[in-house]
């Protein structure tokens, strides 16, 4: 599903190139649950942003579902966002002026899903996340954990093939964090959704099937976890 070949990213500062990613090559298959780990400043977010096509690599090749991302035009990229990619952010990034239900519905609007179908899908997701009672509240009326649940619900409702999550539990208490991880694991196993998350926590990483260790922009370790649990 994802092919990275020799991805480089650097910023030129006063003639000095400061590398953030170097020779990053890897491939991720449909249905994998990958955790990216590493110390602060290692380039984890940058890598995830490149995977999410939010940033462009300075050099290297990136294929997403067989398509060359570098030569992708804006329209195609937006199509990918609509149909295949769901984002989950550390800071949730819900739209403050929309209710819970509207936030979840938003991606469907861009996908031009019919009104009836939207209603049923949103109701479905709300039900699954036990948020039906909260559907008319605004984000600032929810707790952090609840907000992140809405964030994930929003990422899921469009039925993406991949979820990209940058420290999805970074702002949460551990019981809530574990709840989110359980959810990811379930989605990964039951619906075969590819999940790539950035995390600092070994515990969170253990929910996944693979760990990429990043150090100073280089993949130091690519660990496959045995599904023993």
């Amino acid at each position: 599903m994802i092919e990275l070949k020799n991805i480089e990213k650097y910023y030129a500062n006063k003639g000095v190139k400061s590398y953030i990613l170097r020779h990053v090559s890897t491939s991720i298959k449909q249905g994998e649950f990958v955790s990216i780990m590493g110390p602060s400043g290692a380039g984890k977010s940058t890598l995830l942003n490149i995977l999410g096509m939010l940033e462009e690599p300075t050099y290297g090749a990136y294929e997403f579902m067989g398509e060359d991302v570098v030569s992708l035009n804006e329209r195609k990229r937006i199509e990918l966002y609509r149909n295949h990619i769901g984002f989950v952010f550390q800071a949730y990034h819900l739209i403050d002026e929309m209710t819970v239900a509207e936030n979840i519905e938003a991606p469907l609007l861009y996908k031009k899903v019919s009104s009836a179908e939207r209603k049923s899908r949103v109701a479905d997701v709300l039900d699954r996340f036990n948020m039906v009672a909260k559907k008319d509240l605004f984000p600032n009326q929810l707790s952090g954990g609840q907000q992140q649940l809405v964030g994930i619900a929003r990422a899921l409702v469009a039925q993406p093939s991949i979820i990209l999550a940058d420290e999805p539990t970074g702002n949460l208490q551990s019981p809530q964090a574990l709840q989110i991880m359980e959810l990811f694991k379930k989605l990964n196993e039951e619906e075969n959704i590819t999940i790539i998350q950035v995390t600092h926590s070994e515990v969170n990483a253990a929910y996944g099937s693979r760990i990429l260790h990043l150090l100073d922009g280089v993949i130091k370790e690519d660990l496959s976890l045995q599904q023993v649990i």
Partner: protein
Amino acid sequence: MFKLNLKIAFRNLLKNRGYAVVNVLGLVFGLTSFLLLLMYINHEQDYDRWDSGLSNVYQVRERHDFFSPDGKQHWQYGIDSKIAGLLKKSIPQFRQVTKVSVLWRNGTAIKIGQSEPILMNDLLEVDSLFFKVFPYKFLKGVQKTAVSEPNTMVLKESAAKKLFGTLDVLGKHVKVLRWSSDEGKTYQVKGLIADPSTPESLSFGAVLHSGEREKDPEGPGSTNYCQVYALAGDQIDTTAVAKAVQKTYIDYKKSTFAALKTSYDDYYKGEMFPGLKVVPLQQVHADPPLSKSWLEKVKPIIGLTVFLLLVSVINFVNLATVQSVQRAKEVGVKKVLGAYKRSLLMQFLLEAAILSSVALVISIALTELLLPVFGRHFEIEMTFWNNSRLWSLMIQLGAVFVVVTLLSGFYPALVLSNCNPVDVLKGTYERGLKGVALRNGLLVLQFVIAVTFIIGIGVMFLQSSYVAHKNPGFEPDRLINIKTSYQEDLAEKIRRVPGVKYVATTTQVMGNVFNVPREITYKSKDYKLNTVTVTMDALQALGTQLVVGRLFSRAYAQDTLNAVVLNEAAAKLLGGHMLGQQYVLKDEGEKHTFQVVGIIKDYHNEGFDKEILPTIYKASSRGGTSSTNNLLIRFENENYQQTISLIEAEWKKKYPDYPMVYTAAESAFQDALKADRRFIEMVTVFSFISVALSLLGLFALAAFVSKRRTKEIAIRKILGASDLQIIRMLNRSFLILVLFANVISWPIAYVLTNKWLSGFAYRIDMPVFPFILATLLSLTVALLTVSLQAKKAAVSDPVNALKYE
């Protein structure tokens, strides 16, 4: 999607109520003034559009110097009546030519039966062809024959209601007195016409047909002046017609000069040349002779209005971009959810559209509310909903709406929809927000406009107070002017009324000036001077100030023969030291010698925009000609109301069928200043609004900047900065901007106010004070505004600010 965007828009507006209100208010100011202007322009362009046939009607204009205000040749529409017949005969394109004279604007008395006479000042005397040229719609009577008989009249619906209180007027008889001593003539109403749907340049309440207009004075030397209108066939070749008209005129003038045995070439030399032309009736209002056209008059106001709209749009843009920081997250998220840039652009334009449509609706309501005031100000009548061109007005409003929405919404929408989601989601958007230079630029522009306005008001205020306190050269108080010819018997009776000091007449008084240029020879040089005919004590009655010599007096028998008084301007023109000097006036071959017996101070008889002409005052035994139309009465003391009713009683005895109409010289004097005063009032209103808008903009920007720097401020405070130091820090950048705006405004304001001042013959030197004042004022107000915001930021608890970062 649209519904959701609309919902978000409203939630956003509610959340940022303050900004929304400021934004809408700003636009309302700009739009309202723009709407008023738009309606005014529509109204002015509507002149003479009430019938499609009017596009074939032409007004005839002749170049001559008779009764021109400066004694020079001008294109005038009061022309030699013989030209009408001439055009009909030699220009085949003109199917009908009609002669019209406007009856004295100070009033024609209409007496119906035994009731009190009613004064009408919108009557026309027409020849029998009037309705062949002007296609008025007859409600009663027959268009073809309505004015074919002498002593007939046709009324407009509105005038019929006013005079008779009914529309059932056909066949009725009324007595018409054209001036006070007129014995009157009876006219029969032969027609009733509908009031046209648009204003008219030749407006009237009724037309009279006495039959006198049918013939022209006999003999080549005598001329009678009237207006001439011609109806042409469809699509005439205007250049060819213009050529033919001019040629006909030159031939006519040559034959007239030959008949009078005078030299055509001697007369038409230098600035004098013969000229006759036709002007389409529908252009007459836009191109009046002798005065500035309405467009010329409102040009400065158009400028002001456009500037005001601009300021309010800038305000909008500034506030919107400032707010966009808050919206950036929404945009970033929507982008990664798969929104097209275009749809985001549309969303933000939609929000601008909501605001500007709210503003537009309020503006329309406000316009409706202000129209009566505005109409009184400009002395026109306009309504919004009953506007004859409501549809075209609606289309114009639609266009204004689109333009304002695009102007104010497009840039913020573009900034937002272009933002990079990574920046936003990382939280670096605010710091990286582009367009700081643009916002600062807009702020500077706003202040340039505001400061220019302030300087403008300052200069105008100084000039108008100079004018108000300038000695007019005569005493306007305790002086009234009855609009009538001077009759010695009535004057004598009024003189005997207790409380009356002088009764006199003159051809030149504020509000009614009739300048007659005469050529004189002094020390064998020729001069052209303005001549004013007065009665013996007219100069005393006016309260003019004697410089040397004496005024006219009954004690000197020869005063009515060969004595004259000069004003200082005339004395100066003739070389000074004129007392006792003699000059020669040639009149139809004969030479008359006049002696200067006194010199008076120049006195104003028109607005201060006009130079006082060098003038000769000549006493007349006949009490002026019957056409002076001024009967000056000076009273002994201030409380002259009682005296006036006594005078009115005398009047009634002499003129039972003609009401007495008078104006106080004081109010005529104020009238002369009215136009300038109006303009100054306008500018003052505009200035206040634009200054207020600029301050709003500054306030919002300051609020934004201090919000953006909350964290910085908190940290600085923790490090030990005092509130004052923080306020100073925030102020610095804004003060530099405002100062910069001032520097730009100075030359602009200088050029503009200098241009305005140059329109006054009597004016102040360019003052420095308004410039300094504007700068101090703008800096102070900016300082206060920013400090208010900065203080809020500075005194807030640093812990809170840091916790929520």
